[in-house]
């Protein structure tokens, strides 16, 4: 018989709708602004510390919604966003160095929903406020750094095997060593080849002009660059964690870019300094008077450029060997950084200092920076901005080695306690494997975020209302079906976005609004077709059947093409545009489901089992 669904179809539709309803529910409970307090050393927090914070908050007139503690951390839920920032400042004042205070958003989803692992959609930065950085990893620098390290190791190998070499040069992708004779070169090539398989070797020149050129293979280049980006990701994650931000995002984008999003952060200056810092340390021995010039380099002191010293080219260890670092003050109240090295670092340091007691060891502070200059094309007059990267190296200390150093020691010579603190943080979180540059930055104030949510919601509501009225006036009873389908469509859309963990952005809300407008399209097509079939003289049941049937291909074709466009939009878009593409695609799928199956089920239930005299359409 026409216009009847088997029972399982009704049940399936019902199940989907109930699941949709459940998973969209958490969005009705907006997250509470909160501050999260954890011990700086990772120990459990003292009850008394929390009581002090509680009292201080009360004194400052900040109302507490609830307090919870879990695994040594305390979460204090507050009433509103303004309180949140004040509360953090108050808590930081009270606790000082004892604990880390971070902003957080505490879920307010009821526990029975949490048990079903239902959670609300995450809000994008444009709705929450915060900072968005796009960073670019300098791939060329990653290569040259690796070549420098290899060159240093090769020099050591050659020295230990007593092979004489004259000069080493690092170019973009290759490394060459000059020798005094072809024989030396050949022995060296055999030795180096054994330890460094990642190069393609070629001989150039003969006799006194003999040199060995080693070029990185394409595969190695890819590996190095991939490693650099991944290493930078890890480092940035560590740094962002140290900043104490709730739900930060650090993500790779494309081959050489990294996106960092810090919701709720207002002090972009500090955030940028920590995230983007490329500082690293190098420990080197001071050159002896009789060291050949080829093996030395001259550096000036950071705080006094007129003083300088000659250092050995070879690096004992870099900041990468640091396993932990903290800052404090020495006996004279000057800032210092206490450093612990990892196993290999400790061995290297011990070996270098043991045999060189009495010599000076230098700590070199290295920072990658870049400078912009405007280049004018002489022919077209077009201006382009060229970025010139450069490396700044300066001595921070030069001290006599009194005894063999082991795994832990301290360095002094820093300008200020802030510098010591930041250096310690950077050494802890690891240095960047390759320099990074900021190529994009967006800061969205919290007021704009709140305003965007408010306006977005309002336009969704008004838009929905207008469509509902339009459909009712035009299609009467069928308009009711379409409107119920529209409401269910919105519910499903929100449920799927929440389940996928998609981020809701302002263009995403626009996507929802647009989907609502277009979602009724399928129903309009069907209803118009039913009307037409009625005019053509079909019986009511046949007209309903034919209407759904004949409109089907149009609906599928039209929606698939729109879906294709949405997918392309997703693949080229960044951030907010992606959000729009996601909502649009999900909206197309859910609207097809509700328009084709759900309204059909309602129509079948209403008209399918009995003779109908007149169709209110």
């Amino acid at each position: 018989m026409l216009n009847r669904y088997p029972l399982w179809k009704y049940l399936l539709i019902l199940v989907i709708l109930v699941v949709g309803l459940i998973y969209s529910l958490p969005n009705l409970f907006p997250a509470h602004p909160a501050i999260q307090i954890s011990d700086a050393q990772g120990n459990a927090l003292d009850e008394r510390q929390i009581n002090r914070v509680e009292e201080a908050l009360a004194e400052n007139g900040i109302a507490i919604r609830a307090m919870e503690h879990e695994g040594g951390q305390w979460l204090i839920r507050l009433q509103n966003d303004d309180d949140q920032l004040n509360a953090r400042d108050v808590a930081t004042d009270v606790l000082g160095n004892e604990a880390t205070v971070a902003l957080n958003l505490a879920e307010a989803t009821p526990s029975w929903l949490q048990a079903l692992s239902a959670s609300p959609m995450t809000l994008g930065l444009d709705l929450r406020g915060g900072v968005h950085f796009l960073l670019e990893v300098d791939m060329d620098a990653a290569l040259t750094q690796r070549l420098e390290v290899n060159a240093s190791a090769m020099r050591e190998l050659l020295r230990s095997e007593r092979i004489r070499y004259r000069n080493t040069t690092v170019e973009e992708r290759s490394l060459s060593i000059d020798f005094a004779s072809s024989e030396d070169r050949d022995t060296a090539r055999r030795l180096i080849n054994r330890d460094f398989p990642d190069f393609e070797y070629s001989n150039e020149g003969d006799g006194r002009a003999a040199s060995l050129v080693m070029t990185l293979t394409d595969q190695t280049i890819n590996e190095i660059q991939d490693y650099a980006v991944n290493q930078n990701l890890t480092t940035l994650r560590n740094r962002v964690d140290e900043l104490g931000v709730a739900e930060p995002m650090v993500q790779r984008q494309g081959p050489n870019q990294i996106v960092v999003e810090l919701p709720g952060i207002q002090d972009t200056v500090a955030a940028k300094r920590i995230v983007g810092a490329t500082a690293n340390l190098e420990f080197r021995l001071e050159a002896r008077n009789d060291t050949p010039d080829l093996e030395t380099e001259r550096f000036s002191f950071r705080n006094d450029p007129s003083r300088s010293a000659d250092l050995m080219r070879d690096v004992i260890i870099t900041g990468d060997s640091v396993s932990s670092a903290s800052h404090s003050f020495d006996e004279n109240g000057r800032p210092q950084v206490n450093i612990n090295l990892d196993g290999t670092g400790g061995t290297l340091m011990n070996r270098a200092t043991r045999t060189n007691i009495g010599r000076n060891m230098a700590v070199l502070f290295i920072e990658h920076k870049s400078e912009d200059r405007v280049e004018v094309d002489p022919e077209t007059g077009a201006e382009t901005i060229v970025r010139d990267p450069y490396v700044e190296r300066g001595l921070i200390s030069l001290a006599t080695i009194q005894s063999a150093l082991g795994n832990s020691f301290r360095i002094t010579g820093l300008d200020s306690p802030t510098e010591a603190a930041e250096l310690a943080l950077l050494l802890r979180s690891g240095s960047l494997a390759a320099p990074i540059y900021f190529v994009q930055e967006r800061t969205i104030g919290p007021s704009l975020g709140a305003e965007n949510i408010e306006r977005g919601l309002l336009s969704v509501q008004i838009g929905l209302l207008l469509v509902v009225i339009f459909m009712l006036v035009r299609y009467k009873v069928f308009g009711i079906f379409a409107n119920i389908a529209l409401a269910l469509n919105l519910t499903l859309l929100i449920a799927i976005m929440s389940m996928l963990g998609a981020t809701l952005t302002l263009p995403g809300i626009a996507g929802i609004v647009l989907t609502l407008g277009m979602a009724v399209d399928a129903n309009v097509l069907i209803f118009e077709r039913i009307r037409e079939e009625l005019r053509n003289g079909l019986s009511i049941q046949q007209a309903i059947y034919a209407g759904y049937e004949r409109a089907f291909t149009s609906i599928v074709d039209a929606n698939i093409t729109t879906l294709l466009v949405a997918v392309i939009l997703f693949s080229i878009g960044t951030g907010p545009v992606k959000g729009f593409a996601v909502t649009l695609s999900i909206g197309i799928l859910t609207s097809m489901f509700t328009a084709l199956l759900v309204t059909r089920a309602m129509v079948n239930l209403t008209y399918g089992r009995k003779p109908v005299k007149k169709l209110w359409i």
Partner: protein
Amino acid sequence: MKPLSQLQIDFMGRRNLAFVISAVLLVISIGAIIFQQLNLGLDFTGGTLVEVRYGTAPSLDAIRQLLETSGFQDVSVQTFGASTEVLIRLQQAFDPDVGGEVVSLLRADGASVDLVRAEFVGAQVGEQLRDQSGLGLMVALGVVMLYVAFRFQYKFALGALLALLHDVIIVVGIFALFQLDFNLTVLAAILAVIGYSLNDTIVVYDRIREAIRTSRIDDMPQIFNEAINATLSRTLATSGTTILVLLALLLLGGDMIQNFAIALLIGVLVGTFSSIYISGALLLPLKLSREDLIPTKKEVDEEEEELP
């Protein structure tokens, strides 16, 4: 609404008028794009943008002078939405923390100033995005055309492509003509317009295909008229609801998505016009005939039987 569905408007008879209107719009749009050029947003040009909110409406000239004497170059200052909200654009790139700097400068004379947002886009990123976006548009059009050619026939694909190009050029042209800010969200809107307009076009094409198969006459304009008239009330109803929600978005959605809503609104209007007139009427000069659809007939019939 009944009269509308029974109207038989002779769309094809007036197709020359429609072509003239389209041609005029296209000429104006292309002219505007060439001579006025698009007012590309920060996303595409690179640069720095700072939006601040004042307690009381400030003098824009004073802000401009203050910034220029402080060494910022190419400063553009305008209000954004309200008279107390000021949008400052700087071409100076790669200067860290420029947002904070600007705010503290403006605060120096005692005014109450809040940073609403600060954006900085590197020149290379902008350039990259420009290329990527152009490519995205091409790919979108290409993929869609392939799909239409596969589901219908290549003449339909050509007609749809020309209709879509028509819509895109006119939306972009209007943005160039009125020097509206063309940013990434506007680009997203244009891609959505492609989707939307195509949706309309396909519904009309679907009906034309059906009409050609079932009709006994060979007079194409007549068949097209019937098909377009049959879908007219649907086209207008869908455009109507979409325009309603877009108006809600335009009037209530806030300044940040205003241009997005404008682009979609123009796109929906032009797209509706083009799917009624241009995409159908274009099939006539392409000499679509019944024979073009016969080889695919069997395949489509089979598909229809599989439907639930």
